[in-house]
């Protein structure tokens, strides 16, 4: 495996986003800070929303943010996957390069941003006195999501090489997924008839598990393990598909 090269690529990706900006890499911290502050003001003061099942008096915006972090790892990585290989024709055609690691770069950079987001969230939780030791499980809860994202990224990146439309198709789908998954609301808010669907939606299961971890509530391990299996299968299929289509990349680009 090309771990060192992958790390370099991710580093470049993150640095490149902020290169030339006045605050530079500081934006990695500033953006979540601003986001969380806005949410605190809007949902805490202006638009006093309540989580349907109030989690021991935790403010709505903290509950929302803890789920959003997990979803955004998926959303950011997958939205950028269509161009992950496509935007590096030189790496594909003119260099001896392990192309398979390219789709992992958006995920890596999404994870780095998520780490800073999580740090800010934990600080906010500590500030408001809601920090629970079970929050340490958060990264582990993410594993099924990571596997699934890796698989989807491989798949979408390969298609993105052949079909330019993928850049247009994928982002709305990510939006739709956010609305149909229990990200902005708890799964229990769904009508009873749709509940199993919500419970075993791997994306939803992970988001729920992450939220439970943060607030020290019992984790639905059955749903989580189902999501893990789903992630493993997605990753394997994505890898197979990517490897098969890789031979055509140079011709298509």
């Amino acid at each position: 495996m090309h771990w060192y090269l992958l790390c370099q690529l991710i580093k470049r990706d993150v640095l490149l986003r902020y290169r030339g900006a006045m605050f530079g890499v500081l934006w990695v911290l500033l953006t979540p800070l601003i986001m969380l502050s806005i949410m605190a003001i809007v949902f805490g003061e202006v638009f006093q929303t309540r989580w349907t099942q109030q989690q021991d008096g935790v403010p709505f915006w903290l509950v929302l943010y803890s789920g959003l972090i997990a979803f955004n790892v998926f959303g950011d990585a997958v939205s950028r996957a269509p161009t992950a290989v496509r935007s590096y024709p030189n790496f594909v055609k003119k260099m001896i390069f392990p192309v398979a690691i390219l789709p992992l770069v958006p995920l890596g950079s999404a994870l780095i941003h998520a780490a800073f987001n999580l740090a800010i969230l934990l600080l906010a939780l500590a500030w408001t006195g809601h920090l629970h030791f079970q929050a340490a499980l958060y990264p582990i809860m993410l594993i099924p999501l990571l596997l699934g994202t890796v698989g989807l990224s491989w798949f979408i990146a390969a298609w993105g090489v052949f079909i330019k439309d993928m850049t247009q198709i994928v982002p709305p789908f990510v939006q739709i997924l956010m609305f149909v998954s229990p990200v902005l609301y708890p799964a229990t808010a769904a009508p009873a008839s749709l509940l199993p669907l919500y419970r075993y939606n791997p994306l939803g299961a992970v988001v729920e598990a992450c939220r439970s971890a943060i607030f020290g509530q019992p984790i639905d391990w059955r749903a989580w393990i189902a999501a893990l299996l789903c992630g493993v299968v997605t990753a394997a299929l994505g890898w197979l598909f990517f490897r098969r289509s890789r031979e055509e990349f140079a011709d298509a680009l």
Partner: protein
Amino acid sequence: MRSDDAVISVHDLGKSYRLFKHPGDRVKEFLCLGLKQYHRESVALEGVSFEIKRGETVGIVGHNGAGKSTLLQLVCGVLKPTRGSVWVHGRISALLELGTGFNADFTGRENVFFQGAVIGFSQNEMQKRFDEIATFADIGDYIDQPVRTYSSGMFLRLAFAVAVHVDPEILVVDEALSTGDAAFQDKCFRRMEVIRNGGCTILFVSHAVGQIARFCKRALLLDHGRLVFDGPVSRTLSLYVNNAYGVKQNEPDSSNFSQSDSADGLVRRPYYNDAEIRLGDRAATIWDARLIQGGVENPSFFVPGKRTRLLLNVRFHVAVDRPVYEFSLKTARGAMLFGTNTSELGTSEKAQEKGSDVTVCFDFDPYLDAGEYAISVGISGLAPTGSVTHDRRYDSIHFHVAQPLASGGRLAINAEFHKVVDVAQLPTTELVKL
């Protein structure tokens, strides 16, 4: 089938591209699992087989679109063959195109380390090589500037420096050197010689016939995706050059060749360089050449600046209307010092009939530093369509120049030193008059 010391083995290699009229056709073809064809095939390479041994330096020539770059990409594993197989043993460092993989927004230094990571070197391993790379590239403080501020020459310098300093076992260079200036090209070739002597195999594509001739012992000629010739560089180049300039190919008739060889006096001269590159259609041939200085034929050392005569014997096998005699002088390393021909000298030579045999001479003063030099001679004909090379013998004569009075550099310009007390007393009055 593969020999023991082969590092590259290519067998019946073919590459064709699937051309789709519309991007959607690719999806359609994928969805119907190959039951229906939506594409057209375009063949880039067909039935190519060869083997390259460890430490060999092989040139690849051919017209645009002959498949040279495709072949290199296949060898590098960037493209997958449609047919046949490529077997490569060893770490490849490739310069398929200039500075690919360099990110314009990052500095030269960052890009060097990144290139190292691509090849598989850790930060530490690259750190050890970095100074050497920076020295070789010789771009000064620009190494810490974003690459987008670089000139194309600086780009080449850095890219090449990285490629040759990562201990490649196989070096693949595609056209890259053509943008560098002469001094840098010279440096590149010296470096390539060093790594070749270290056992590195080099595959080299260039349109510059001179570069190939100078650097490779063997060359492959590709034409329309087929391997037309694989052999000694002189034969390959003469086939290529003759094709390239549209001269009808005199089929290499073996009896004809042996006959002309036996009549060739130059090959038996002690100063003859058997690594000469000989090009041309041989409608006229140079069958002997002699160097005379101070009445002595072929002295073991030449005196700098003393009148020297180059005698050429030329036989015309067909009538040539406007013959042009050529001669040029290079250092043994291959740096061009001087070249001229009778057309440039302003003399138009009289037409020669078929079967005529003439002796011509160039007189010159070799104001040269001590060292080894090579002379190239040639005969060509001016036709209404352009110049036709009949016989050009690159670097066919070697000679030595003895130590001059003052040395340093390649030219001896008879420099004298005077301590100036009074300008009026300087021995050369012309200076004062100026």
